[in-house]
């Protein structure tokens, strides 16, 4: 069990092999504008065999292939959205680091803002209502006796 755990750790560590940045000079396109687009798109595409790295950062083989494919599609004239769709068609929404906005991800995108709005309005309502000073709670019998004691009655 321990050996297995170790193997898992070792393998996962390999996948994490930190890149001193992964784009190689020979991958880069000649046209700087196109290359800039390629880099921007690459940063939004996930390396599907790594833990939370974009294909721009990863040295994995698949990441290299995906980077090259991105550049080929750009040179063929695809728009940014078309390049992203190209990858999604092959690897699913998983390949996008920016999750799509669809029924399944509504809670993800709107959850926190909704919470903010709800809590904010709730607090404002409560705040308005609490303007009036609440009447003091009536004295209990023991407390009333103490008051009378203190007042010397």
């Amino acid at each position, binding site marked *: 069990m321990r050996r297995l755990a170790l193997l898992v750790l070792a393998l*996962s560590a390999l996948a994490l092999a930190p890149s001193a940045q992964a784009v190689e000079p020979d991958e880069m396109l000649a046209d700087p504008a196109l290359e800039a687009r390629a880099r921007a798109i690459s940063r939004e595409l996930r390396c*599907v*065999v790594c*833990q939370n790295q974009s294909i721009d950062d990863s040295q994995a*083989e*698949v990441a*290299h*292939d*995906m980077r090259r*494919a991105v550049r080929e599609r750009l040179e063929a004239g695809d728009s940014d959205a078309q390049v992203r769709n190209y990858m*999604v*068609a*092959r*690897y*699913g929404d*998983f390949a996008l680091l920016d999750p799509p906005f669809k029924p399944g991800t509504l809670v993800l995108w709107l959850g926190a803002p909704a919470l903010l709005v709800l809590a904010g309005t709730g607090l404002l309502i409560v705040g308005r209502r609490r303007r009036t000073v609440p009447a003091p709670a009536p004295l209990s019998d023991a407390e009333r006796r103490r008051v009378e004691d203190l007042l010397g009655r």
Partner: protein
Amino acid sequence: MSRRLLFLLPLATLLTMAGFFAWSMVSGRDPASIGSVMVNRPAPPLADVTLGPSGLGGGKPVLVNFFASWCAPCLAEHPLISRLAEREGATVIGVAWKNKPDEARAWLARLGNPYRQLLFDQDGKLALDWGLSGVPETYLVDARGIVRLHYRRAINEHDLKDTILPLLRAGQ
């Protein structure tokens, strides 16, 4: 009363979250698995090999197996692939991924070549169209050319008995 409910909200959130965690751990879910979008879609192009009704399978399901000679799990699943090809009569197409052709051929010569056809994908372009993330990966394409199975790992006995063979036999 509603004030009380408000105070219970954090606890309720925690229990929901913990529920998901427990579910995840109990179900043996693998967080690293990335799923496959190839299943139930027409098979991507496979170089000059035709799949589907008038393709290589001859009206029967076809297996596409991506492998490499440097890949250890590929070595482990090779006997099963061979069994599918030889004993069960399945049509298996092999794609050597990121592998020098002579190394791949030598490997197959040593272990036995179960493939009806052998393709080479040295630069990974073909594999990208199939959504490959590494080797070994195996796809089952039915008689109509639709991908029915996509294993992102070496296949094992259970896969064979429970899933692959039934589909192969049903397609005949």
